[in-house]
C-alpha cells in the first residue's frame, strides 16, 4: 500500500503546524495590546547607531567566505551519501568498504584543495 510510512513523518509537519498555531497568536495579542505610535518616521528607520542610514542595507557583501558555502553544497552531499553506507553497513560485505575508501580518498583530495583555496582570503 502506497503511503504507509508517510504518517510518521507527517507528525513532524503537524508539530510544525502546532507550534505555528500556538505561538502565532502571541504576535497577534502583542499587536493588539501593545501601544502603537505612528508619529515619528525616524522610529522606523533601520538601526544605524543613531545616525541616519546611509546606503543600502542589503549589499553585495561578505565574499571572503563564499568559498565555504560552495564547499558546503558539495560536502553536505558527501556527508549524507555516507549515511547510505553507514546505515546499511551491517548488511554489506566487507569488500563494499573499498569503493567507499576510494570515494573518501577522492573527496579528501578535493577537500584539501578547497580548504587551501578558501583559506586564502585575499582572493575572495
Amino acid at each position: 500500500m502506497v503511503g504507509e510510512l508517510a504518517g510518521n513523518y507527517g507528525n513532524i509537519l503537524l508539530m510544525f503546524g502546532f507550534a505555528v498555531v500556538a505561538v502565532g497568536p502571541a504576535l497577534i495579542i502583542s499587536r493588539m495590546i501593545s501601544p502603537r505610535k505612528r508619529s515619528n518616521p525616524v522610529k522606523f528607520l533601520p538601526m544605524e547607531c543613531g545616525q541616519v542610514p546611509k546606503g543600502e542595507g542589503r549589499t553585495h557583501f561578505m565574499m571572503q567566505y563564499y568559498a565555504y558555502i560552495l564547499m558546503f553544497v558539495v560536502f553536505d552531499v558527501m556527508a549524507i551519501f555516507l549515511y547510505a553506507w553507514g546505515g546499511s553497513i551491517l548488511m554489506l560485505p566487507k569488500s563494499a568498504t573499498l569503493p567507499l575508501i576510494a570515494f573518501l580518498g577522492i573527496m579528501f583530495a578535493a577537500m584539501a584543495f578547497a580548504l587551501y583555496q578558501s583559506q586564502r582570503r585575499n582572493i575572495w
Partner: protein
Amino acid sequence: MIEMNATPLVILGVLGVAGVILPVLDVARRERFTQMYAALALGALFISIGYVGYQFVSGVIQPGAVFSTDVLANDAFGGLFAIAMLIVAVFSVTGSISYMRNQKYPAVYYSLILLSAIGMVLVAYSTDLVMLFVAWELMSIPTYVLAGFMKRNPISNEAALKYFLFGAMSSAIIVYGISMVYGLTGTTNISEVIVGLTTLDASMIPLAILAVGLFIAGFGFKMGLVPFHMWLPDTYEGAPQPITALLAAATKKAGFAATIRIVIMGMAALHLDWALALGVIAVMTMTIGNVAAIMQKNLSRMLAYSSIGHAGYILIGLAVAPYSATGLQGSLYHVLNHAVMKGAAFIAISGVVVALAVTHLDKIKGLGRRMPITALGLTISLLALAGVPPLNGFWSKLMLFGAALDSGSVVWWGPWLAIAAVLNSALSLAYYGWIMRKMYFEGEDAKRVREPKSVIAVMIFSIIFMVGLGVYPDPVIQFVEIATPTFTIP
C-alpha cells in the same frame, strides 16, 4: 562483478588518480610546476591509450558492443571511442601548454580535462543507464568550468553560462528519459532494458517513443543536432580553443556513443519507426550547419557550424544502420576521423590565438607565411574535413555515403540522403577553400612569427595521421569493423 583489470576501470583509476592529485599538487605549488602538470596529465593519458591498445592487441576485448549485466562493459565499441576521445584529450592538453602559460590554476585546468576524459570514456563503456548518466555528468560538469576558465574574458564567461544552462537542461531531460525507460521496464541495465522493451505491452509503446525522443533530445543537445544546436556556435567561439577542441571533437562523440547504445535499445522498442526521423534530422543538421558556416566571419564560429554539419554526416550512419551493414561502421570511422580532424583544426586555431590573438577571418591573411606549420596543419585538416580524396576524411565519408546508397534497396529515402550529403560536402569545400585562400593567397606583408611548440607537435602528429591513414586506411577499417556493434533486427 566486473574484473578489476577491465579497461574502463583501469582508465578510471589512472586518469582519476592523476586528476585528483593535480589540484593537491597545486596546493604544494612551486612556480616551475606549470609544465609538470601538463606532463603528468599527458603521461596519464598515454598510459590509458596504451592500456586500451594493449587490451586490443592481446585480444581480451570482446568485439562489437557488449551489453553485460554490470554497469560497465569491456568491449571494442567502447575501446574505439576511448581511443578517439583520449587522442583528443591529448591534443587538448598539448595545445593548452602554450595557451595556459600565463593563466592561473593550470593544475585545476588539466585535472578537469582528465576528469572530463574519464567521463567521456565511461559513457562509451557504460551498459547501465545510471552509470551512463553519471558518466555523462562527469563529462559535462568539468567542461562547464573549462569553458569559462578564462574569467577575464567576458566571451568565455558568457559561452560557459550558455553552455551550462543548455547542458544542465540536456542532462535533466536525459534523466527524465531514463525515468520513463525505468518505469516501463523496471530496470536500468541496458541489456535488461532491451529485454524488457521487446516484451513491452502494446499500450506502453507511446511512452517508449516519448522516452527515446527525450533521449534523442538530451543527447542531441550535446551532439548539436539541429533543433538543439543554438548554444553551440556561441560556446565554441567563446570557450578557450583547446577546450573547444575537446568539446567539438570529444564530448560530441560521447553523445554519439550514448546515442548508439540507446538507439539499439530504442530499435528494439520501436520497430524501426525512428530511422526516417533520424534521417530527416541528419539532413537538416548538415544543411543548416554548412549553410550557416558560409556566413561566418570568425574562424572558431565557422568551424563550430562545420562541426554541426559533421554531426549530420555521422547521423546518416545511424539512420541507415538497420538497412546497411556499413552504416554504423561508417559512423564509427567518421567519429574517429572527425575527432582527429576537428581536434587538429581547433588546436591550430588555438595556436593562432596564442601567437596572434586573432580569430577573425580577415585577420588571418597570410597565415601561410606567418605560421607555416600551423597553417599547413589547418589546411590539411580542413581538406580532410571536406573529404578530399587522399586524406582519411574521404574514406569515412565514402563509407557513409555508400551505406546510404546501399540502403536504397530497402528504403526509398536512402539515396536522397547520400545526395544531400554529397552536396553538403561540396558546399563545405567552398568555405574551407575560402579560409585557405585567405591564408595563402592574401596578405603579402607578413613575416614569420614564433609558433608554439606544443601546437607544432599536435600538427605534425595529425598531419601524419590524416595523410597516412588516408593513403593506407586498411588497419583502421579493420579496427572499426571489430568495434562496430552488430545490429540484429528483432
